[in-house]
């Protein structure tokens, strides 16, 4: 049964029976609150959370409640899930509201391939292109309205950002704090100017930026130092204060009511601060994610949590919890730098070694396989997977390809590369394209994207990756932000012309990606949680099998990361039951009985589906 179109009423309906919190849910919530705030406080806080859940439930349409009864959490994701990551105002056309323009483009050009749109923060903001939110519950009027967001939700699933770690310094909440309003007194982490944190404590704290951890603000009570992990304009919220947690849960369920099918927890690594620790991945942070999950399981089980934690791979996957109690999707942060490394070196050994460790998490959870996003290519996630020389090599390659580097401060005060700021197209093809013809550049680019499209998990493509945008290096100088290299606002008419000119690089990339996504969507072999086995068949090739449960059939996926043709043999264990294959990209049959040697062209993609022998 399809999810109903009408999911939430405009107003809560209290004529219906109220939501009854199941006892096991109540117990789980109280346990989490106890871990965070102690048992006495937890019993004081719980009734407010229960009230918020009841209010949310009263908004739900009967159709949605009915549909949920047959909803199977193991069907949360399917091979049809492909996510387009975009800013709400990435396309400008005349004086139309950007969300309406985006909706038209997505429907006209991308609805056959993408079924989910991740609209990056669309709230009023003061900096960081939306990630310093001034009001969590409003849509930026420069983009459109809630009605425009809901309109996109008619044809696509929606992913919203929960930017819950911090709030804009220009927000009402923070301004009221400066004004001395007692309601906001403990909303932020504050030190008086004469009470500095010890150097030892500061050294322990893991930083994603080089900006100062504390920013001094003038308040009605004089100067105060306030915790600002990301920038002076992004003030960390104080989750030690249960009022903050309760408020954020209320906002979280507002997003569900407004149509979110997935909620991305931005920068969630840094949610809970505790002096004397590194202030990342703390058990309280995991507990808060578990709380979000318990509440979703209770009142909106079809909504997925996705954690954005740009950290070493081993720490990143901890956000799955036990596979059932934290995020349903985790950004697969190691994938982009490893794919990039494979293409610039022409060797897949590092990617292959890591990919062998990627196993199915649970039937309810999977990886979010992205290569590009509004941010850069993170280097922390490959700490331990690439050595320092290999990471330096990526840094220098990025510079040569017209990109820039973002840095962070290490515990000893030194600065080290944190992220590579470059469009995926320029990363793969370089900024100097004089040596290659367009066909070869498109082929190389599509080969890189194919890895993420067929790898275990749900794939995502950033808008600029979808249309093959090159670096916008001038924007970096203009906006004084290295991330601006991949955030260009596109003129709608120009984009339309590019997409309709079949000889343009954008149209060729979109067409090729649409074709590959079409293959993915039609084959259960590419279900996000179909099994995956990675093979070493050649240094130039990345090879893996996708195979659903309870099936002898499989697809052997091979991607050539070099421009040279390569001959390989399919591993013997894969040809035991059949030697007949159907290659899904070229749409041709292959009989390996006569010749087990297979040639793959430069930057080739082969998806060899096993064909059962007829009885």
């Amino acid at each position, binding site marked *: 049964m399809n999810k109903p179109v009408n999911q939430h009423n405009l107003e809560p309906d209290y004529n219906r029976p109220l939501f009854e919190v199941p006892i096991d849910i109540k117990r789980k919530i109280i346990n989490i609150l106890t871990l965070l705030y102690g048992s006495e406080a937890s019993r004081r806080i719980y009734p407010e959370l229960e009230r918020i859940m009841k209010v949310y439930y009263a908004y739900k349409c009967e159709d949605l409640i009915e549909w949920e009864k047959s909803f199977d959490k193991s069907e949360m994701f399917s091979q049809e899930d492909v996510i387009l990551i975009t800013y709400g105002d990435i396309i400008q056309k005349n004086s139309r509201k950007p969300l309406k323009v985006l909706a038209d483009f997505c429907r006209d050009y991308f609805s056959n391939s993408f079924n989910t749109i991740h609209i990056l923060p669309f709230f009023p903001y003061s900096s960081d292109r939306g990630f310093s939110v001034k009001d969590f519950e409003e849509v930026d009027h420069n983009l459109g309205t809630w009605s425009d967001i809901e309109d996109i939700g008619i044809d696509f699933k929606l992913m919203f950002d929960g930017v819950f770690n911090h709030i804009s310094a220009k927000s009402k909440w923070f301004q009221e704090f400066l004004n001395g309003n007692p309601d906001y007194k403990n909303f932020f982490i504050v030190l008086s100017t004469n009470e500095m944190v010890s150097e030892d404590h500061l050294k322990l704290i893991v930083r994603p930026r080089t900006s100062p951890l504390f920013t001094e603000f003038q308040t009605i009570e004089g100067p105060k130092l306030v915790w600002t992990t990301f920038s002076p304009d992004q003030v960390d919220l104080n989750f030690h204060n249960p009022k903050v947690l309760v408020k954020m849960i209320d906002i979280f369920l507002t997003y569900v009511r407004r149509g979110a099918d997935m909620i991305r927890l931005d920068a969630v690594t840094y949610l809970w601060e505790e002096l004397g620790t590194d202030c990342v991945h703390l058990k309280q942070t995991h507990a808060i994610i578990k709380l979000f999950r318990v509440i979703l399981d209770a009142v909106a089980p079809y909504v997925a949590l996705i954690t954005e934690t740009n950290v070493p791979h081993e720490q990143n996957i901890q956000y799955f919890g036990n596979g059932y109690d934290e995020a349903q999707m985790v950004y697969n942060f190691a994938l982009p730098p490893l794919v990039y490394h494979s293409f610039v070196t022409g060797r897949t050994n590092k990617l292959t070694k890591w990919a062998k460790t990627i196993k199915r998490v649970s039937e309810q959870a999977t990886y979010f396989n992205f290569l590009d996003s509004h941010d850069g290519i993170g280097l922390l996630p490959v700490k331990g997977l690439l050595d320092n020389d290999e990471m*330096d*090599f990526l*840094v*220098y*390659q990025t*510079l*040569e390809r*017209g990109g*820039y*580097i*973002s*840095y962070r401060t290490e515990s000893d005060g030194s*600065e080290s590369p944190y992220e590579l700021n470059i469009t995926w197209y320029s990363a793969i093809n370089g*900024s*100097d394209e004089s040596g290659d013809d367009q066909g070869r550049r498109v082929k190389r680019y599509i080969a890189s994207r194919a890895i993420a499209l067929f790898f275990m998990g749900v794939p995502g493509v950033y808008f600029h990756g979808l249309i093959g945008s090159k670096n916008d*290096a*001038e924007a*970096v*100088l203009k906006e*004084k932000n*290295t991330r601006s290299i991949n955030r260009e606002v596109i003129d709608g008419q120009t984009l339309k012309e590019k997409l309709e000119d079949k000889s343009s690089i954008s149209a060729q990339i979109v067409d090729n990606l649409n074709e590959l996504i079409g293959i993915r969507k039609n084959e259960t072999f590419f279900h996000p949680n179909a099994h995956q086995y990675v093979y070493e068949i050649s240094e130039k090739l990345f090879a893996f099998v996708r195979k659903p449960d309870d099936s002898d059939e499989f697809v052997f996926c091979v991607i050539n990361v070099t421009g040279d043709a390569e001959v390989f043999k399919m591993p013997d264990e894969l040809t035991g039951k059949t030697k007949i294959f159907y290659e899904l990209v070229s749409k041709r049959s292959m009989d390996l009985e006569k010749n087990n040697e297979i040639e793959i062209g430069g930057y080739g993609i082969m998806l060899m589906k096993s064909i059962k022998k007829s009885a």
Partner: protein
Amino acid sequence: MAFDVSYALDRTVAVIEIPERLDAGCSNELKDKINEIVNESIYNIVINLSNTNFIDSSGLGALVSKISVCKANGGDIKLAAPGKRVFEILQITHLDKVLNYYHDLEEAINSFATG
């Protein structure tokens, strides 16, 4: 526009003089010049910015166009005497963290001798 190149420390270091403006009009030529130097197996390069007061993004790209080759061969690209305006651009793009810079040309050249 021709970029003047001189050599120092027994031709182990190449010094490229950059004009007042380094922009799209001459950045490809600078790339070609650096390429020529690298093809001569000289991987220690000093970019003299003492006369430069404007760099755009294509100019910045040219400065680092062969950095991986230089680094891979034990060399480096170093900047000499960047002015205030140029240095601000290096800071915005974080190239000040990648490229070593020196207040004067002699210091930049000699840094290759001292390692």
